[in-house]
């Protein structure tokens, strides 16, 4: 039923069990992600719009593949459905703006057969203010902000952009991150510059970065010294399937980051090590990439190589982003970014004029709920 529904702004539903009826109807229309949604009543959407001072009709982005207009109001509707709180709106609006940027290539990301999905990375004081989880299980479940902001973005790409599985989104396997894929950097435990500072923002700024993330590769860093760990990371990278990746993201576990820093590795030092060691012999490279014609982005010096034992970098990367995230431990992760999404796009989060009162209201509500839960 994707795309086949009445083109109304507001629809009246009458039922003795409206929650179930709405969920069933929305599911049949292709408006959910398969999980129950919070019905977007007019009242709930009005409350969600308190999270921004932008006019509801303002178009934040035009989203591929169907070129749907992501207005502030429509973003709020999907935010309600995902279970967001109003104070999450500024981060969500920034994320929508990013995926609407032509350089993000949402048309490709949202329709490709490749298993990729937008991954939201958040930096700055807003992480604590919104109680985004940057520690244990940051990529997993349990925190409303991480779960619902990530979920809302995917509902927006689906419902506003028109990316429907099997209709316009032809991903062979899909990606579990399409339910929620929102991570905060653990800046407290980062011994180097956090991502947003590296990208040119002041440390106190709130910044959202969105990447077209592919499948995750776990790196068991336990027991390795610094060189051993980086050698492991290099071997993982050298086994990747594409000869060229504009961006690869490396989530470094906090204890591993501390070890690397202690042993004198800066982020640039890590990148240099990886570039020198993530390599395969040309004989293998030729079989994997040249004979199969997967040579997009490969420079001529490699294509003209003759020595079968020459070590060739895999993949050639424009950027290796290094982010410290997660809880205590030494378990890292490599996240390859889809090759056709060429740039790292970040936006500073624009806070509404009522931001402090919004946060106060959220705190008061939490205090009330905490008291209720203890009684």
């Amino acid at each position, binding site marked *: 039923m994707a795309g086949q*529904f009445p*083109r*109304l*702004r*507001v*629809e*009246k*539903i*009458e*039922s*003795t*069990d*409206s929650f179930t009826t*709405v969920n069933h109807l*929305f599911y049949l229309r292709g*408006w959910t992600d398969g999980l129950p949604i919070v*019905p*977007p*009543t*007019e009242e709930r*959407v009005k409350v969600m719009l308190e999270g921004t001072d932008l006019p509801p009709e303002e178009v934040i982005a*035009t*989203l591929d593949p*169907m*070129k*749907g*207009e*992501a*207005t502030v*109001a*429509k973003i709020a*509707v*999907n935010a309600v*459905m995902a279970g967001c709180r109003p104070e999450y709106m500024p981060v969500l609006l920034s994320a929508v703006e990013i995926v609407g940027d*032509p350089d993000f*290539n949402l*048309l*490709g990301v949202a329709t490709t*057969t490749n298993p990729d999905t937008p991954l939201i990375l958040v930096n700055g004081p807003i992480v604590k203010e919104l109680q985004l989880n940057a520690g244990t299980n940051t990529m997993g479940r349990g925190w409303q902000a991480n779960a619902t902001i990530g979920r809302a973005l995917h*509902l927006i790409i689906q*419902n*506003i*952009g*028109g990316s429907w599985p099997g209709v316009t989104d*032809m991903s062979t396997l899909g990606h579990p991150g399409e339910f929620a894929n929102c991570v905060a950097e653990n800046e407290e435990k980062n011994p180097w510059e956090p991502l947003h500072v590296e990208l040119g923002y002041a440390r106190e700024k709130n910044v959202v970065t969105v990447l077209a993330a592919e499948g995750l590769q776990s790196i068991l860093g336990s027991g390795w010294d610094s060189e051993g760990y980086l050698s492991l990371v290099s071997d993982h990278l050298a086994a990747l399937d594409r000869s060229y990746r504009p961006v690869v993201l490396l989530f470094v576990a906090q204890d591993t980051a501390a070890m690397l820093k202690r042993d004198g590795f800066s982020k640039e030092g890590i990148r240099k090590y990886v570039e020198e060691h993530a390599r395969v012999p040309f004989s293998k490279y030729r079989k994997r990439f040249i004979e*199969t*014609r997967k040579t*997009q982005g490969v420079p001529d010096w490699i294509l003209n190589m003759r020595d079968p034992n020459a070590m060739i970098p895999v993949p050639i990367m424009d950027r290796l982003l290094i982010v410290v995230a997660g809880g205590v431990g030494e378990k890292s992760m490599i996240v390859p970014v889809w090759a*056709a999404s060429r740039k790292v796009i970040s936006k500073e989060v624009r806070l509404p004029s009522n931001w402090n009162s919004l946060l106060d209201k959220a705190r008061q509500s939490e205090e009330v709920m905490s008291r209720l839960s203890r009684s």
Partner: protein
Amino acid sequence: MKRGLRKAAAAWAVLMVLMVPAVSFSREAIQEWQLVHPEGVIKIEPMKINAHPSTLVGKTVLLRSNGKHNADNYLTRVAELLQKEVKDVKIIKSWEVAPETNTISQNPDKSKQFAQRLASFKPDLVIGSQCD
């Protein structure tokens, strides 16, 4: 006797009322919700599509490969069949005349560039390989 019967009947009536379980006959309340739809307004730009040629006899057919595996093999077979079936058809293979287009375009701007490059060969019909 009659008074006694009436008293007994009244007592039975009270007893029956007390024994019958309390049943609510009120209907479940109907909830009425006004829901805002989540889909975006889609602005469709009308596109003029060229008329299909009524015949391929004497026409130029450009076969466009997107560089994916076997795209060229498949289109070469299409070329063979066309040349067998259609009189005086001229076949152009994109991967031979414009090898720089023998790859996925990856974005709308590149798609347009590729289309313009291939249009410069002035085909009457383009048959393209898509996706994987």
